[in-house]
């Protein structure tokens, strides 16, 4: 589904990703771990099409398409989803109408009929139970005045409604208490299927107690320096990152 080969990315002349390789297949959950400044968020941003990153070399192919050549909205319509580390507040844009608009853009792209207000509300109510979100948050402007946990739940709600093929979760666990973490992880686990894939970017191992990854990768200085199964995450929890960095 996603194939990243020798990806090199810089920001204002400073190299951040330095020859990154990653293969993600449908049905898999990949965890990308690493210390601060290793390039985790840059990877998430580049994959979702944020401005301000220069691709200096390598490639990223998504469902056979040159991903880096697609506009951010086209990536989303093709089934990619980024759960933001810091979800943006958008005053004046209603949470429900925003999400309805987003879903219908994606449906249009797929050649499906747009959902009307009634069908959409039924869908969103169902998915809200998944993330245990209060209904009044739907009536508010996008993320405005939401607590940290509510913002992250709103990301997972969006993910549940848009039903992506490839979801990238950028430090979704940061700033979450254990209850919120459980709910967010529960959402991911319920959405998981053989047809979709998740890339879970995290600094800490604790999210991986709830979302069990198939593959764990350690990112350091813009490269994956070690890959393994879920046991690698436990090892990192016990030993920290230093032993790996010394080897690298």
């Amino acid at each position, binding site marked *: 589904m996603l194939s990243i080969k020798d990806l090199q990315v810089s920001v204002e002349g400073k190299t951040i990703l330095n020859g990154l390789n990653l293969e993600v297949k449908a049905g898999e959950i990949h965890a990308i771990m690493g210390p601060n400044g290793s390039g985790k968020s840059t990877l998430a941003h580049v994959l979702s099409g*944020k401005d301000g990153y220069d691709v200096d070399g390598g490639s990223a192919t998504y469902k056979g398409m040159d991903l880096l050549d697609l*506009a*951010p*909205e086209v990536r989303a319509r093709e089934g990619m989803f980024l759960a933001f580390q810091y979800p*943006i507040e*958008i005053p*004046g844009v209603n949470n429900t109408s*925003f*999400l309805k608009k987003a879903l219908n853009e994606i449906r249009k792209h797929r050649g499906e009929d747009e959902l009307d207000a009634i069908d959409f509300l039924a869908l969103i109510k169902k998915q809200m139970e998944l993330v245990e979100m209060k209904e009044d948050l739907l009536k508010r402007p996008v993320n405005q005045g939401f607590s940290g946990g509510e913002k992250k739940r709103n990301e997972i709600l969006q993910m549940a409604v848009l039903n992506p093929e490839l979801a990238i979760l950028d430090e979704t666990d940061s700033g979450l208490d254990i209850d919120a973490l459980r709910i967010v992880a529960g959402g991911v686990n319920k959405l998981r299927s053989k047809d979709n894939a998740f890339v879970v970017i995290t600094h800490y191992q604790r999210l991986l107690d709830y979302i069990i990854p198939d593959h764990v990768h350690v990112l350091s200085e813009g490269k994956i320096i070690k890959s393994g199964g879920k046991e690698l995450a436990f090892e990192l929890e016990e030993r920290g990152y230093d032993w790996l960095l010394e080897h690298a």
Partner: protein
Amino acid sequence: MADIYPDIKTWLQEKSIDTHASDYVLSPERRTESLRAVAENNFPTRKDEEWRYTPIANVVNRSIQSGTDLSIDADDLQEIKQIVPEACHVVFVDGQYSAELSDDLAAVAKQGVDISPLSEMNASQGQLAEAMVTNANFSDTNIFQYMTLGLVNSGLFIHVEQNTEVEQPLHIIYVNGPTKSAVVQTPVNFIRLGTNSRFTCIQHFVNSDESKAITIPADFFDLAEGSGIQSYRIGVESDQTDHISNSYARIADSARFVSHQYLLGSRLTRSNTEVLFDGEGAEAVLRGIYLGDNDQHLDIRTYVDHAKPNCMSDQHFRGILGGKARGVFNGLVMVQKDAQHTNAEQSNKNLLLSREARVDTKPQLEIYADDVKCGHGATVGELDEDALFYLQSRGIGREEAAQMLIHAFAAEVTQDITIGSLQPYILEKLDKKLSEISGP
């Protein structure tokens, strides 16, 4: 048959010589005095501090025509009326009251309103109108005001009787037909609210793309104790129309003046609103959006005079400027020495959609009392890139995402509109214009 004059000065000279002025509606002394002021004052230039950001050479040098054939498209007018279907509609064509196109004013009178076109005022109405002009103490006096007062030949006199809540809004529509040269229109409304009365009025300046006009209106509001008005001004005139307006409101004890301005049209707009608190416990709420594209120039001025204690004023204006458009916001809140416990808020936010768009904003506070709560602020910014990316990352195209953000920026002001059908109309107008606006 229309007479054509090369510029406004020549036209004014001709008008001043016309000693009959049989259509003039205020006192002969008012006319003499105002026209003398017109003759003695020059048109402001950029050297005048109050006009520093608003060049009016293009207004002064327009060719003017007097007399029009008063032809307008009946279907278009019907459409405009339908924007507020429940309202009583009063129509002015080229600044002249049209009984034929207007609803019967008797229906409004039945609801407890003494209402009359200025041309048909009786003696007591005329005296009240005259007094409202005399008592208005504009901080910004200029030649355009004198022109309006020296030439006024149309408008409405409205007096809402005490304890009367008028449910039906009054929709005043100003239209122009297609002309070769600019028509000068100087309508004036005198709106008086009796004790504890309520009134809603919409002034709608709307003309066709072929219309050429210089609109120089004035409004005088007088709110007695406990009364309240919702006053709307909607400017959607053609890009061959210049619009320079002055409003003056006097507010007595516990009265509430709410003004909404949606200025989307015209080549040049300058809107001056002045509010005097002449009683305690009163409120003034001023809302406005100005949206400019191409070479449009939109200049908003407010002056709120807290002359009495315990009053509240709340101003919120937002500008959206694309193309080479320019916006000016100049708001002054004056808190006099005796105006303790004043609560005054003033905010002006601007969104620039192109590199060549520009805004000059100057929110000002002058405070001479010591126990007050006042705040003011202005921002000028571009669209939030992070918000754009967030919307895009959910599948919404960049242009549409930009529209959503601008729409949201405007909608925070339009949510205060109290007339159900007016809000969608304004937002639709905004969206239509935004979709045509030239980006960076």
